[in-house]
Structure formats: structure tokens, C-alpha cells
């Protein structure tokens, strides 16, 4: 058996591994869900949704802004400065070092970015959390960013759309991060009092203190298919409670079934749904096209065609 284990097996392994190396990482992506390979151009063309299994891959703020407003259709909002490292926190690494690493890797200041643009005829301010930045965790900077973006929406009389993706509060900021739950909630109340729609798009994953504050306080909750959304992490639940987790637990579809979100929307449809929803909420009356060609009152009340300007906007 020595010959088999010492000679044959390594050679077979070498052959197999050589095949693996032949896949250049920059051209092919592996779907984390079905593990099949996807050519990068196909993946981009498919809005980073796996063409095989429909898995919605995580995307960052820049990607969201571009797909919502078009390549040059948005104005990034400057994020205000927030206190850095209020606790002087250190675990195996300094928090300031972790922050710098994340900033270098993501080229972002922190885990939330915001931009303003138009969705059809409607002004929209959009805040997007970046899971790649320390797990999208919420510290003072994310809280500050959320509050200032919401206030910018109020200033512009714009709808406010928040894309959430977060592991929860940022431990390294201790109770300061906990207070961001209350702080962001105040911003939601201000939006509400200003009479502006606040739409939450829950993306994979949204958990912990973010779910338990502004992410669950939207006027309308939209979730991306398959997104994990919940309060406690699955590991915590399994360990502390020793309960068996049901299939699809904490997935977007599960939340829909349990009444926590209004709809699960495929990424291909997201922009149109947002535009339609915000349009209905912000513009309480629109003139439908060709009203005099068919004067029948029952048809006038239930028009099949949406207004022209909205249709045009949706086509770009």
C-alpha cells in the first residue's frame, strides 16, 4: 500500500490540481451557492446573479448606485466625520488597524455610502451598506452616515432608499455602536414626519442591531431573493437554544411568509419596483396617457397603461 499512498496518490492529486490552476481567477467566478463556474462577463451581464441557480451575489454601494441611477446619474454624498475608535479598542489587533485595513481593501471610509439621483421623475437619496467593510457593521460612522443621508433626503424632498447588509452593531465601538440603533431610529422618524417614503431593501445578510433598528422600520420592506435576514445569528441560536433550524430559516422568502417583508424582488426587477412604489407614494395623482380616446368611465378608473414619462424612464 505504500506505493499507492506515496507514489500514485500524489501524482493523481498533482494532475487534478493542475486542472484547477488552469482556471484564471479574474475570468471565472465560482457561485458560492451552487459552486458552478460563471464567466465574468456573463456574471456582469446578469447583474451578478448566478445564471445557474439564481443566487444573488453581494454587491457594494458603487454597484447599487450605478444600477439604480445609471453610470453617471448620481451624486455621491459626502459622509460626515464621526469619532474614530471611541473605546481605544484592541482585541488580537487594534481596531484602528482593522479600520485602516478595511479602508485600504474597500477604498471606502466606512460601511455606509450614500448618493442622490433621480429615479424617473422622482428625486431619491440612497444609502447603501457595504458588507465587505468589516461585515457592514454599524458604528458611529454608519449611524452618522445614515442620519445625514436621511436629512439630505428631507432637504431635497426626496424618497429615501436604504440597502442594508450588515452583521449588526460594531463590537469594537461597544455601547456607542448600540446607541446607533436609537440614533438611526430618530432619522427614520424625521423622514416620516417630513412625509417622505422610506424604503428598505434588505440584502444578504442583514442581522443583529441593524435589523433591530432602521432596517425593520421602513414604510415598505423589499428583500432580495435568498437573503439572510434576522436578529440572532444562526450559530448563536443553535448553540444557545439547541433548536434545529428549519429549512430556509431567516431567508427572504421565510420572512415574507412570516409577514416581515412586503415582497421579495429579483435584482432584475428591483429598479422598476422601486420606481413604481416611490412614484405611487410621492405623486398621488398622475395623468394617464390618451384619456380622450376612450371615455368609458370604468376604463378610466382602471387604466392598463402607466404614465408615459414613467415608462420612458424605466427604459434606459
Amino acid at each position, binding site marked *: 500500500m505504500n506505493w499507492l499512498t506515496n507514489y500514485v496518490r500524489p501524482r493523481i492529486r498533482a494532475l487534478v490540481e493542475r486542472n484547477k490552476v488552469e482556471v484564471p481567477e479574474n475570468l471565472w467566478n465560482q457561485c458560492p451557492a451552487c459552486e458552478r463556474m460563471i464567466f465574468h462577463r456573463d456574471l456582469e451581464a446578469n447583474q451578478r446573479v448566478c445564471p445557474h441557480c439564481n443566487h444573488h451575489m453581494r454587491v457594494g454601494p458603487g454597484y447599487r448606485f450605478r444600477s439604480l441611477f445609471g453610470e453617471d446619474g448620481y451624486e455621491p454624498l459626502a459622509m*460626515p*466625520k*464621526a*469619532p474614530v475608535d*471611541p*473605546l481605544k*479598542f*484592541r*482585541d*488580537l489587533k487594534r481596531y484602528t488597524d482593522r479600520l485602516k485595513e478595511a479602508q485600504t481593501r474597500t477604498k471606502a471610509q466606512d460601511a455606509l455610502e450614500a448618493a442622490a439621483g433621480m429615479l424617473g421623475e422622482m428625486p431619491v437619496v440612497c444609502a447603501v451598506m457595504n458588507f465587505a467593510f468589516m461585515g457592514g457593521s454599524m*458604528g*458611529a460612522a454608519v*449611524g*452618522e452616515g445614515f*442620519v445625514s443621508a436621511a436629512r439630505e433626503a428631507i432637504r431635497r424632498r426626496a424618497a429615501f432608499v436604504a440597502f442594508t447588509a450588515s452583521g449588526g*452593531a*460594531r*463590537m*469594537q*465601538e*461597544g*455601547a*456607542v*455602536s*448600540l*446607541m*446607533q*440603533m*436609537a*440614533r438611526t*431610529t*430618530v*432619522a*427614520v*422618524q424625521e423622514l416620516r414626519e417630513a412625509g417622505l417614503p422610506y424604503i428598505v431593501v434588505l440584502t444578504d445578510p442583514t442581522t*443583529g*442591531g441593524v*435589523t*433591530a*433598528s*432602521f*432596517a*425593520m*422600520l421602513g414604510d415598505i420592506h423589499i428583500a432580495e431573493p435568498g437573503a439572510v435576514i*434576522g*436578529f*440572532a*445569528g444562526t450559530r*448563536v*441560536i443553535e448553540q*444557545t*437554544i439547541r*433548536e434545529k*433550524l*428549519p429549512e430556509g*430559516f*431567516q431567508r427572504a422568502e421565510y420572512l415574507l411568509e*412570516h*409577514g*416581515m417583508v412586503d415582497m421579495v424582488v429579483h435584482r432584475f426587477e428591483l429598479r422598476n419596483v422601486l420606481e413604481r412604489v416611490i412614484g405611487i407614494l410621492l405623486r398621488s395623482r398622475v395623468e394617464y396617457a390618451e384619456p380622450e380616446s376612450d371615455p368609458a368611465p370604468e376604463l378610466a378608473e382602471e387604466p392598463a397603461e402607466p404614465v408615459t414619462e414613467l415608462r420612458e424612464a424605466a427604459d434606459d
Partner: protein
Amino acid sequence: MSVLLDFEKPIAELEGKVKELRLLMDGSDLDLAEEVQRLEARAAKLLSQTYAKLTPWQKTQVARHPDRPHFGDYVAALIADFTPLAGDRSFGEDTALMGGIGRFRGRSVMVLGHEKGRETEDRVRHNFGMARPEGYRKAVRLMRLAERFGLPVLSFIDTPGAHPGVRAEERGQAEAIARSIETCLDLRVPIIATVIGEGGSGGAIALATADRVLMLEHAIYSVISPEGCAAILWRNAEKAAEAAGALKLTAQDLLDLGLIDEIVPEPLGGAHRAGATTTARVGEAIARHLRELEERDGGELRAARRRKYLAMGSENAA
């Protein structure tokens, strides 16, 4: 003392010796008074020294001490005519989060708080103070009730955190907490929160977003338990003591960070040694703040509360 913390053992040994000597003295003519006095003085000194410089991890243990006064003890000591109210009117009743109406020094109030329970059976019944969505929804209902009748809300925080479980998730644990925070921020009546033991993360802030947040001297208030933090950041739950220090979860830390308003001193050796003194001191502090808050208009109270939380973690305020 039924439960002895590790660092209390030397104190307990001295106290034990004093007791023995006293017994000896009772049954004989031996004059040990001087020795007893000397040992008592030593025990008292050791106790005050130990409690004057508790580490954050030791404070965590004190904050979780089962003999500390619980919600029920505060209600018994401070609230007359207490009338518990139950249920969220949509799913069920949750005894991890208790509430009811009563009178605090003659003033009608709404009282809310986590109850951990004391004996094993009792602890299970109260789910160790870990509330489920129906608990937070009951809190929202009771806060709204309080607002309609102009009752100030007094909340007592003592929870390891919100219950992490399948059913709780199913019924929207996150949403329930978010609504509770939102309701706290919306009230036009005074709300005073007191962290009496453990202020565990979202489950705590759900009731602790208040005009005044008081904390007992050895209570803790944290975004995550030291054990949980150690398991994630140190990849080793045994580093909890280190994590407790890094998290800045003591009352003194939170006051320095400007996140709470006042520390209520505990009797020497911690609240678990003198429950009645502790509840009385908390009552005094609440009364003082309530007098001040009651003077103010509801809208103004609410606006000030929002300003207070908007400033937390803002560059301008820090």
C-alpha cells in the same frame, strides 16, 4: 450568601471566622471581643478594597449575581398598588418582560422591566430575562397606554439579551425591538430607565432609550456579552475577561462616554449584600429625575430625547 463569587472568597473566609469566634464566645467565658473586632475590621477593609477596584469582568459577575435585587424587588419596594398587566394583544404573554401600573410616591406610573427570576423553576418561567417579540410588543402597548393617561414610564433593565430562538425570529424579534426603541423615542411622557444588572444589547436598549438612563454602580451595559465578543474577536470564549475590559461596559465607562446620565452607588460589597438599601437609593434617584422631567412639556421632552440620541457618536457632540 448563597452564591459566592471567586474574588469574594477571602472576604467570606474572614466573615466565617468571625462567626465561629462569636459562637465560641457565646458558649464560654472566653473574651474574644478584641479578636472578633480585629477580624471584622479586616473583612470590612478587604470588602471595600475589593469592591473599590473591581475589574470589568468582576463587575460582570456582580451584575449577574442572582441575589441582586430584581425587577420584582424594585416593584415591591418602590411601587404601591402595583397592578401587573399582561399580553401583547396579538400573540401572547411574555414573563421575561414584566409591566404594570402603580404608584411611585403617590404618582401614577407605568413600570416595565426584565425579570430574570430567582429559583431554577422561576428562572425558566421568566426565560432568564430574555424577552421574546411579544414581550417587546407588550412594552410598546403599555408605553402607549402610559402616554394616553400621562403616566411617566419607569423601566428596569436586567437582561442577558433578547431571546435568540427559532420562534422568536419567526415572529419578528428584530422588528419588535425596533418598534420598542421607536416608541421610547416617540413618547410625550417622561421615561426613566435604570440598568439594575445586566444591560444586554438590543434587548436592553429596547427599553432603555430614555430621557434619563441611570445605572447601578456595578451594573454593565454592552453591545455584546464579553463571552460572545471573546468567541468572535479572540476566537476563544475564555478571553471573556479581556473582552469585558475592551468593551468598556461598566457604569463608569458609560458615564465617561456620555451614554448614561447618572451612576447610583451600591452599598458596600454590592447590591446583592443589601437589597433594601439598593432599591431605596434607586428610588431616590428616580424621584429626583422625575421631579425635574415632570415640569416639562411632552413635545419638548420628546424633542430633547431625540436630540440626545442624535448626538451619540456624532463628531460635534463627542
